[in-house]
């Protein structure tokens, strides 16, 4: 029997959050954490969590698993469980709506702030815009972000200033468009990032890199943005 301890909070009935203990029979299988949650939901249907693709591409089920942020659907128990104990909490630093469900509003707002869409006012050709494989390679490691928020909610700078610091996820996407040979708005994009908070709150501690379930490297992207800012200003 796996011991599972889960953060519970329903604002309608609970005056404060608490940890609830569950026993789950895994029948010795190396389940994913999401499978464990499904088994628990069969015991207690009021357990709330988000999930969708169950294969690590939609980014719904980011949560704090034994102290580390990750996606429940692609985290096998063997990776995280020591001494038969699994502790699940919502992603840190965001308001809790209920149980493991957090309000991601401010995370999305920071994503929207970097204008996450290609900008190019020139008239497009009748076919696609051409891009060499080398130019396209620059987008690898950037466009794959699934907006699960594991990185930004592992970042102390984002905890302290979620309204002003764009956070690793948003900055990774900011650089995804700065690095795109088809985008023509680099100057305007950089002007929006030059203040002391949006980019420069990153202190390079690389929590984001450590938790990213897709193996992406926001710290490197932030470094590249700093280089571009410097190039642009000197």
């Amino acid at each position: 029997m796996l011991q599972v301890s889960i953060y519970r909070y329903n604002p309608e009935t609970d005056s404060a959050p608490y940890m609830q203990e569950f026993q789950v029979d895994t029948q010795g299988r190396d389940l994913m954490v999401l499978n464990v949650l499904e088994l628990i939901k069969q015991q207690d249907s009021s357990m709330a969590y988000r999930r969708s693709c169950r294969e690590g591409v939609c980014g719904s089920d980011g949560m704090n698993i034994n102290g580390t942020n990750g996606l429940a659907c692609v985290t096998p128990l063997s990776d995280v469980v020591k001494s038969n104990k699994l502790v699940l909490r919502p992603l840190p630093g965001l308001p809790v709506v209920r149980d493991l469900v957090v309000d991601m509003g401010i995370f999305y707002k920071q994503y929207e702030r970097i204008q996450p869409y290609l900008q190019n006012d020139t008239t497009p050709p009748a076919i696609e815009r051409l891009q060499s494989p080398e130019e396209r390679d620059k987008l690898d490691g950037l466009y794959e972000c699934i907006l699960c928020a594991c990185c930004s909610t592992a970042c102390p700078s984002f905890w302290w200033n979620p309204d002003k610091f764009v956070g690793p996820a948003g900055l990774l996407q900011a650089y995804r468009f700065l690095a795109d040979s088809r985008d023509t708005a680099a100057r305007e994009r950089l002007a929006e990032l030059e203040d002391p908070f949006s980019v420069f709150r990153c202190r390079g501690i690389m929590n984001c890199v450590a938790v990213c379930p897709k193996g992406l490297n926001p710290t490197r992207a932030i470094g590249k943005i700093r280089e571009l800012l410097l190039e642009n200003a000197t």
Partner: protein
Amino acid sequence: MSTMRNLSFDAIIIGGGGSGLRAALELAKSGKKTAVLSKVFPTRSHTVSAQGGITCAIASADPNDDWRWHMYDTVKGSDYIADQDAAEYMCTEGPKAVFELEHMGLPFSRFDNGRIYQRPFGGQSKNFGEGGQAARTCAAADRTGHALLHTLYQNNLKNNTVFLNEWYAIDLVKNAQGDVVGCIALCIETGEIVHVKSKATVLATGGAGRIFASTTNALINTGDGIGMALRAGFPMQDMEMWQFHPTGIYGAGTLVTEGCRGEGGYLINKDGERFMERYAPNAKDLAGRDVVARSMVMEMLEGRGCGENGDHVMLKLDHLGEEVLQKRLPGIVELSKTFAHVDPAKEPIPVVPTCHYMMGGIPTNVHGQAIMQDGDGNDQIVNGLFACGEAACVSVHGANRLGGNSLLDLVVFGRAAGMFIEGALNEGIDYLAASQSDIDASMARLNRWNESSGGEAVAELKAELQDVMQNDFGVFRKEENMQNGVRKLSDLRERIANAHLSDKSNTFNTARVEALELDNLLEVAEATAISALERKESRGAHSRYDYPDRDDVNWLKHSIYFPVEKRLGKRDVNFTPKTVDTFEPKVRTY
């Protein structure tokens, strides 16, 4: 419920996947008051899981490629019950729609000349099947769906589309004349019930693979739009046609793209034999998905399956080399390590045919307008109701969809629906408003669950339903099993009508959403079961032991399921494309 809040839009799009977002983008750009209502944040929609690519004759890999060849492949792949006017529309409009995506920023992979990378996929040919294998599937590595969905969401942000994220549509609202004038929706975060009024209601709710126990589909694919339309009394088309993807990871059900075989991978049985050479001497592993899936099952039935129970086969990729795998199939490497504990650069991946795609759905014309039949069997437009994407049956996929055609379907027909609705709104739409009793009718099932005080639990009923579908309506179908299945579903209908929702709270109550989804799963399952039982032939994905052959005399038709009488009728397939000659039905070999 006199206190219920109203929201009013020109167009409401239910579903935030590829087709919904494409339709929304078209309408938002035109300045119409548009909202996307989605039960998940849009980038969590199932389009995100599409891997291999979007098939379209953009003449990049082959400068002589021709949309007519693509159309031929599509019609042949459908086993000749795709509507040829619709396939023609998709294949001609396709390049425009794909170039638009690229201009929006979709990060397609590239050839050395800077054009979009295209890879070979199953069922693709040059020169109407005479010129060998084509490479027509435009790809962003093996994450094309992710790239496409994010690009569309981003461009909707750019154009200020209104999003009702984590809202769940419960039922359509019809006025006294039977026109669809909006829906009843639940804000999942707060539990508030809202009446959404709209001049055009677009069902872009995707597929319903979760009616099967084993599926490549996301947990959210519960056929909500299909359920809503069936409860509103509208018919469904070709619901017996479910695609089983040859390569779902054994045990986990997660998808491994056909692009693996496009890049040169192939299937082997327990003897290490490349068995597709026997079943499809020309196309081999790149035959139609229905053909490959059936061949795999045959191998297993004849004792050549792999593993202790001989219940799967292997997909071999190691000969492609680490570099190709990392460059072209990085997501597959990741998925097979996670879910099959196999590094495809070293060992083959265990795979099994897994439910993947619903070819059937809400019958529509190429403008996305939903169609029903009048008393004499003539097509009749349903006022106010539109559908696009997997929820719709235009039909471009007929009895079997080709790989890469679903993403094209999403953007071409999402765009078409958006353009048509824009025009209709400009001309003026004025339907009779819904009365209180119309609204009450749409609230009925929500009220039923909310008032339930005892009965069976949702999770067990769902599991039982999925087992029925898995066992009785799989790759090969038998009359006796299907009759049994239909009976079990009718029994389940009664039990679900008395099932219990124990958690009645309002804040982010996922138990309530799952209960409401169960109703939809049941509607889809029953439509599937009855359609499958009644189509007495084998065609495309629908294979019967008792009727092993295609019967063009009686069944070169769409099936059309009427939910009120639970009756299966027939609807003519379109054989009159506008600019090319009809592709006449031929024996289908690969």
